[in-house]
């Protein structure tokens, strides 16, 4: 559905996106993670034909970005929820959607049906005749999503749709995205929110100007860090600390009475550690082996690249 090959965007001497190559499947929710200034919004803008590429290639729905005729075709098949909702605040919710429906040449019947359907789904139907400027942030965000969907686009680009929303509104938006996922809508989701990405996305790419990793949330968790052992003691004293020093454990951290370190094979590596701790007079309460989280992976990749 979306393909990029060495897609690059430079603003003067600044490279915003560097040689991005990725593929987004039809009906997939694709998460695009990265810190501020990573090039996420620039990538979306290039794919939506809002700004030009500097080099490389990309197709959206089979149409080439950068080609004037194809750009119009791309903009017909996509919907965009920008990072700023960008509603006409002096128009009612209904008029905001109706205007966009007309731009996309939706028939009167289709416009009416879709406006009612999406406003209903997002809990805004009762507010359809209220000026958008009077809406809360959450309501505006929902209306912006409805606007992007009014012409039933094949691909939906969402740029941080839950940023700055209260937990309740963010939850509603996430649930709505999950509903769209059930309908097999292709969604390209820019987000900072790792938990959101993990819960919603089929696959995730981590970007920091360059693409750092791509895969399913599970693949990403496994790809960078291995497992970690957490040993909880009754008390961590000097004898225990001295014993730990002699073991040369990887990424050892001691937090209160918890000792954490990286392991590759916990069955083999944990036994000598526990033995050493017991010999040093430590009383072991619990031993847990935990996998790395998406957050671990994300932070590691982003820190490595900065």
């Amino acid at each position: 559905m979306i393909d990029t090959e060495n897609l690059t965007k430079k603003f003067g001497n600044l490279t915003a996106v560097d040689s991005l190559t990725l593929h987004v499947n039809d009906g997939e929710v694709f998460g695009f993670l990265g810190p501020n200034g990573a090039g996420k919004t620039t990538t979306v803008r290039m794919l939506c034909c809002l700004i030009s590429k500097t080099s490389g290639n990309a197709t959206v729905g089979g149409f080439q970005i950068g080609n004037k005729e194809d750009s119009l075709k791309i903009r017909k098949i996509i919907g965009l929820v920008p990072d700023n909702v960008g509603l006409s605040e002096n128009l009612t919710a209904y008029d905001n959607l109706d205007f966009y429906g007309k731009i996309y040449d939706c028939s009167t019947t289709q416009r009416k049906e879709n406006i009612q359907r999406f406003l209903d789904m997002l809990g805004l139907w009762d507010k359809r005749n209220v000026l958008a400027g009077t809406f809360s942030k959450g309501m505006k965000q929902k209306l912006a999503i409805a606007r992007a969907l009014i012409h039933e686009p094949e691909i939906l680009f969402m740029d941080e749709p839950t940023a700055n929303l209260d937990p309740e509104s963010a939850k509603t938006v996430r649930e709505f995205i999950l509903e769209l996922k059930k309908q097999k809508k292709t969604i390209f989701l820019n987000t900072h929110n790792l938990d959101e990405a993990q819960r919603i996305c089929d696959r995730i790419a981590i970007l920091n100007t360059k693409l750092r990793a791509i895969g399913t949330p599970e693949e990403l968790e496994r790809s960078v860090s291995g497992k970690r052992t957490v040993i909880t003691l009754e008390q961590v004293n000097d004898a225990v600390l001295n014993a730990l020093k002699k073991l040369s454990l990887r990424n050892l951290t001691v937090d209160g009475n918890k000792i954490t370190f990286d392991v590759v094979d916990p069955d083999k590596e944990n036994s000598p550690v526990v033995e050493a701790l017991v010999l040093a007079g430590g009383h072991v309460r619990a031993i847990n082996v935990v996998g790395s989280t998406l957050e671990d992976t994300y932070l590691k990749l982003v820190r490595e690249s900065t």
Partner: protein
Amino acid sequence: MRLSKAWLVASRDFKIFRHQKNILYSIIVFPILISVLFPAILEFAGQRSVGLFAALPSLLNSFSFFIVIGAAYIPLGIASYSIVGEKVEKSLEPLLATPLTDGEILLGKAISALLPTLAAMYAGATFFMVGVDAATFGRLGYNYFPNWTFAVLLLILVPVAVVMSVLYSIIVSSRVNDVRSANGYGIFIFLPFLAIYLASEIHLISLDITGLLIIAGVLAAIDIALYFVGTAAFQREEILTKWK
């Protein structure tokens, strides 16, 4: 370029303007001033100065020119709000992500400033003509308006002045972030019109049909230059990456 799409953009702006009192006032106040104030001045002055009516034709031509100045003034507020307002609301990005072309959006914005201005000025001009004729018929013995000079002024010079003001506002709007600043810079649009008015007062130029056609020709040339600057400023990438 699809006119129907440009009209959609303009229609949406008309709906928005209905909620903007300052725009409504700017559209209404100037035509009312022209159509009421000038006939009232003539009526008032005529009762006190018999000699006034000897100079009426040149005086009325000068008065008429204020309609051109009004035509240049009204679009400033509308076009500034129409574009800077979108910048403030950040509503241009979703609009630019639609299949509308830059030209269609720009034309829509221009129409939304052009039509209310022309409608207001033509309505004001109609009342102005009726009022002036009512105030002067008794002394002149004939209706001064309508006449060919006024027709040239209304049908050629006014549209050219409105287009100039709209294009100028679009260029200014691309460089500022709030409506007040846009209106502040917009004031410079008055300078050429004031210069023309003053030049006519000191008889450097004449506001007769020939004079008005020459002025319209010069303004039309400026319009063409402003069109190229305006369309260069109103491009997707420029708007999203370079506009303040």
